[in-house]
Each structure stands twice: as C-alpha cells, then as structure tokens.
C-alpha cells in the first residue's frame, strides 16, 4: 500500500476506517514527466544518465504543498512525535479543553480509532489514520486528513504521529513545528539513543514529571542529553495528568499561533 515505507506492504492505510487511496499523490503524477525530460537533457555519456533526484522527493513535494496551504490560511500545524505511551493523547485531551480558538487533530496509529474517539470526546474535530503495519505518517496521509477535517483559517492542527522514535524523524509532513514528547518513565538517555528524532525537534516536552519522586530518572542528565543533540530547542517539563507545567505549554502554543499566522 505505502510506497515509501516497506513495512506497510500488504496492509492498507485507512482514514476513519475507510480505505485511504493515495489519490492526492497521484494528482501529482504529471510531475514524473520531468524525469523523462532528464533522460534527454542531462545525459553525461552514451548510456549514463544523470538524475540527481531526492529519493523522498515525492513525499517532500506533498509536504511542501501542505505547508503552503497552512501558510495561506494562517494555520499552525504541529507534529507530535514520541515513543508509544509517552502521553501524547492525554496531553492533547487536556490541551484541547484549555486552548482557545479553533483546533483539530489528525491521529496516526497502526490500528484502532481509540485516540480519535478520545479527542472527539473533548469536542474537537479529529480524524483517525490507521497505517496498517506502517510505522510513521507520510505527507500524503496528512494531506488526506486535512481535506477530511477542513480546518478553518487560524486553526491549530495537531498531528499525533505513530508512536516510534525512529522512522517518523525522516518524513517531513509539511508541519510548522516538531514537538517531541518524552515521558520520564522511558529513561533519561532516550535523546542520545534516538538522536535523529531529538535533533530535529523544535520543542521537547518532558511529560509525567509527577512521577519523578517514584523513579530513578536523572532529570539534569536528561536535559543535558537533549542539549547535546539539539542545543537550541526549547524544553518544557509538565504533567498532563496533574496539570503541573501545562500553563507554559499553553503559552507556547498561543505564541506559535500568531507568529506563524503573521509569517504567512
């Protein structure tokens, strides 16, 4: 089904339980014609043909389309990434109840509509993408999701990516910012073990800090490891469950909305 991630072979990506055909990427199929042009224009020898084409160019092209569309409508799109069980959905549930202004959520999981149902219970719009055996969201899946949601101008669109600290780091969705959520139950050295994910983060949210008194988690070491792979990203410590630290997160979100809307 998915031509980018081999692990989704044999499975079908679904959007709210319906088959997600990659129709939007097919819309761009005319652009393949350019590579035929290259066959003639960049020949370097009798039989050698220069291509110099990005391997992920198809995904990146759709991601650029998404980003242009967000900019045009003054929409802020945030890609939430983490391992499974870090508390992304709970963070979103609490956030949606407190954040003012229009919001919607694109949920990504291998299976079930559980997360979209939890989000809808807060009153927010949500669409569930099931990737089958696929291990990450791709730009065309977000494209299909936002067409389904039709977010109004000025919205915050949250994307809850498939829980995985490896593959989603490689795929641009067209988001404005990447938020990596790390929970203190996972161990302080995750930023060093999965450096590509943390290196590309704009914000790292350290979740479940209410559990710190019960754990051997070395907070200062963890903050140092994040700084080591990503010296400039912001780090917020919070507990979505107790509400501790949530205010700073909400303020960060509010600050992102006008800033990005203005840059459009």
């Amino acid at each position, binding site marked *: 089904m*998915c*031509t*980018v*991630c*081999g*692990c*989704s*072979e044999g499975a079908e990506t679904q959007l709210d339980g319906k088959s997600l055909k990659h129709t939007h990427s097919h819309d761009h199929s005319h652009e*393949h014609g350019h*590579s*035929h042009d*290259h*066959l003639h224009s960049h020949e*370097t020898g009798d*039989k*050698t*043909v*220069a*291509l*110099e*084409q*990005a*391997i*992920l*160019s*198809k995904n990146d092209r759709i991601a650029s389309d998404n980003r242009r569309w967000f900019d045009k409508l003054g929409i802020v799109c945030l890609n939430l990434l983490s391992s499974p069980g870090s508390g992304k959905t709970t963070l979103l549930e609490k956030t949606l109840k407190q954040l003012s202004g229009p919001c919607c959520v694109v949920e990504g999981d291998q299976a079930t509509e559980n997360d979209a149902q939890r989000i809808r219970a807060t009153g927010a719009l949500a669409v569930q993408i099931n990737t089958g055996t696929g*291990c*990450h969201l791709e730009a065309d899946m977000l494209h299909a999701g936002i067409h389904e949601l039709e977010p109004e101008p000025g919205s915050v669109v949250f994307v809850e990516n498939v829980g995985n600290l*490896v*593959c989603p*780091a*490689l795929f641009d969705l067209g988001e404005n910012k990447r938020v990596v959520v790390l929970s203190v139950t996972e161990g302080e050295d995750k930023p060093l073990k999965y*450096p*590509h994910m943390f*290196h590309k983060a704009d914000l790292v949210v350290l979740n479940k800090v209410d559990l710190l008194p019960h754990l051997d988690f070395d907070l200062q070491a963890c903050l140092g490891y994040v*700084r*080591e*792979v*990503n*010296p*400039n990203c912001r780090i917020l410590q919070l507990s979505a469950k107790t509400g501790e630290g949530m205010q700073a997160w909400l303020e960060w979100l509010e600050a992102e909305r006008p800033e990005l809307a203005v840059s459009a």
Partner: protein
Amino acid sequence: MHELGITRNIVSIVADAAGSNPVARVSVKIGEFSAVLPDALHFCFDSCTRGTVLENARLEIINVPGRLACSDCGIEFGSSTPFGRCQCGSRNLRCVAGDELLVHEMELQ
C-alpha cells in the same frame, strides 16, 4: 526498516526515468547523517527490482561523509553525527554534507 521503502522510491524514480530501457547500473548518494543503512539497501534492491527494467541492475552506493560547519568560528570538520561540539566550544553547527538521499545517476544497458 524504512530502507525497504527507500529502495522502492529509488526503483520508482529510476523506472520512471528509464521508460522501457533496461538499466545496468543505479548510483545513489547516501549521506552519513541520513539514518539509512547502505547494507540494508543492497539487501532490499534485488527483491524490489524483480520484474522491472532494473532487474539485474547493479546498485552503486556513494557514501557521503558527514561534515559540519561552526556558525561561530566558521571552521569545517568531519563528523559522524549531525550534532556535536566545535573545537572552539560552540554547539552552533550546521550540516555542510551528510544529509544526502539522492538518486545520482543510472546507466542504461
């Protein structure tokens, strides 16, 4: 194991460019920071090319070493990670080379 999907993208790009011409060799550039394993690409290539114009083609992987530039003192240096510390102490580094994921060229039969 995103290398299987990466390989499918390589095959798709080359097959589009080659049309009906059989391909003898495919050359790709893989940067050291790209989180893609060259050995895994070789492993996937044979099965992904079966029944295409790339069948029996040779996959040539050009490994691009990672290189960072310090935004504070301007020095450039080799690195195996896209982050690190410059000899001047700065962590304010930008990638000069190593994030490549490119189909470089193909050779037709």
